[in-house]
């Protein structure tokens, strides 16, 4: 870590907060702890915070409400922690502006990986590389980065694996540019540190199978000579 990040843990269970803080400190982060929304607000006033780990169930104002409130005033990345682990909560959390979502009990290693990914994305955002969009569309297809859903031109949901979605999102953010495999790997790994990432070629062929009219003669993701791919459709975001 070149420069130390400050992470604010908002968690009412003292032991979980303490242990998590210890791991994050060991990993080179600076950590502040807050037991509820008021302590969090104080901490935000007193220090510059780079990321918030936010528990969903808190005494007083709950995590979802805090998340909504923070989003209206701050750009600080938020990772929600929750013991509910329900798909709906994940979607609601992300829609309210959380950057990621982790179910309890979590492994500290996974938490560190998510923190790295989210911070990296935050850095990307500052460089202005990421399209901040609610909806991305290309050739009639709709890609929702929040709910991570893809819809065909006739409104049918087409399911993607996490890695496939991330790669397609990278293509959409950088359409009509030749991207090498290394670049693609680099762009996607920051966000999904899943242990089962397949090679870019495999992912491209899977995405083609799902969105191309004829996967053997692709129109959207074309192979460029001398190793690379280009996403050809015009991408709009709204």
């Amino acid at each position, binding site marked *: 870590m070149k420069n130390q990040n400050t992470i604010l843990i908002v968690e009412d*269970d003292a*032991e979980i907060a303490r*242990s998590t803080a210890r791991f994050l400190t060991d990993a080179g982060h600076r950590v502040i702890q807050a037991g509820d929304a008021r302590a969090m607000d104080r901490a935000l006033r007193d220090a510059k915070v780079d990321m918030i780990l936010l528990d969903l169930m808190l005494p007083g104002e709950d995590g979802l409400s805090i998340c909504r409130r923070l989003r209206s005033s701050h750009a600080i990345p938020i990772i929600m922690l929750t013991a509910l682990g*329900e798909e709906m909560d994940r979607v609601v959390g992300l829609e309210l502006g959380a950057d990621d979502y982790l179910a309890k009990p979590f492994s*500290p290693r996974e938490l560190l990986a998510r923190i790295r990914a989210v911070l990296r994305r935050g850095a990307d955002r500052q460089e202005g590389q990421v399209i901040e969009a609610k909806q991305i569309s290309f050739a009639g297809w709709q890609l929702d980065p929040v709910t991570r859903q893809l819809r065909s031109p006739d409104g049918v949901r*087409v399911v993607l694996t996490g890695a496939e979605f991330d790669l397609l999102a990278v293509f959409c953010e950088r359409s009509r540019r030749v991207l090498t495999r290394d670049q693609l790997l680099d762009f996607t790994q920051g966000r999904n540190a899943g242990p089962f990432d397949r090679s870019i070629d495999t992912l491209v062929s899977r995405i083609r199978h*799902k969105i191309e009219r004829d996967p*053997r003669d692709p129109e959207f993701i074309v192979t460029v000579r001398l190793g690379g791919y280009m996403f050809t459709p015009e991408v709009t975001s709204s």
Partner: protein
Amino acid sequence: MTRLLRPISQLSIVAQLGLVLVVAQVLAHAITVIVMLWRFGEPGPETFVALNVAKMATVAELASTTSGPERAAILEAARRVQPAIWIIGDQQLRAGHGAFLVSTAVITSVSRFAPSIPAGARFVEVSPDLANPKPGDDLLALSLGDGTSMVFPINQAMFDVPFKVAVIGLSIAMLIVSILAIALWAVGTLTAPLRRVVAVADRFAVDLDATPMKAQGSAEIRTLVHAFNAMRDRIRDLIDSRSRMLAAVSHDLRTPLTRIRLRVETMTDGEDRTRILRDLKSMDVMIGQALSYLRDQTSAMARDRVNLAILIETICTDFSDADQPASFTGPRNVVITCEPDLLTRALSNLIENAVKFGGSAQVSLETRSPAEVAILVDDEGPGIVDAEKLLALEPFSRGDKARGESPSSGFGLGLAIARQIVERHGGSLTLIDRAPKGLRVQVLLPVERLDGQSPKAPTLAPPRTAAIDNFA
């Protein structure tokens, strides 16, 4: 009696009330007729004859006191009622046409109803000289006192029995038709609020947050609506409190699990640490399974049009990426209406079981008809003996123990959860033996929503045949 009435009691309310009204009206009619007959006796033809004769006697009396154009005017007026009236000279009548021909009963009743018949009245036979009286008509001659008689028929065709039957039959038929029409309209109006209640009840079955019914209409309907709204509130309270309880249980169990998980992190690597991590994992899986089983029973279904082929393929990809061999065969584009997250959970459970017990899962998708698709999850494991099959689908039944599952792998709710989700989609889940060995889980799903709420298809413009094509 009750057995006889049962088919009727199953008719629609409109039909039942219509039937009651018709039966009641016909009964009332019949009773009226019976009372009338008992009180006044049957009005035989002679009653009508006598009335007719009495009228004609009055005419004759008037005619006898007048002459010339005055008499002609009176007769003219009378002919409007009784067209067949002739004035015939007594001489002519005597010339062989004077015999009495009507029955004694007729004469008796004539004298009863028409005491004013002039003494000179005589019954005459049909005479071919007269202008076309109907054959069988009896003619009565009333002397006008000036050497002529007024002759007219006394049993008119109007009183013919078939005609009477027709008139009475027609009137009853009209009665029934009009009662039915009014009954249908009235009962339809009366039961409209009931149908509204049914419609809203149907909506509640899917969405308990639908606006409560307005209490309007008859007293009974208002009572029903109040009872129904109260029931809905109660059910919603139960579900709410259950959701709160589930959330609390989930939170309260997972918080200590998280603490332990973090504590384990400080332990040095070794046998103990590995075991604790494994147990923690399986406890977390169990909590997740139990909660999702309980939650899936009542959670709202966010239905969507989904490419099922790609959904299954993606699940298989996720499994094989995690080194759990799962393969998919089937068409590339099969669109169904479903809740994709729930269906993903169900299919993941089935594939997970197949991999666990059979080493690998072969998943295939077929379209059985334009309205139904079949998902087959096959493995080559030991299968489940028939006696255990039903048990295996029951929640918390330990059915999976039959397949030698270790206690650490959770409640064994995988199949029960899958079945519950499939059934909430209006489909079915069956376990089938494969030859020579292995288990096939067959999932049949309707292409469109079919959970008994609304027979109407969702808003898809053209009627779709399963929307299947290999668009390559």
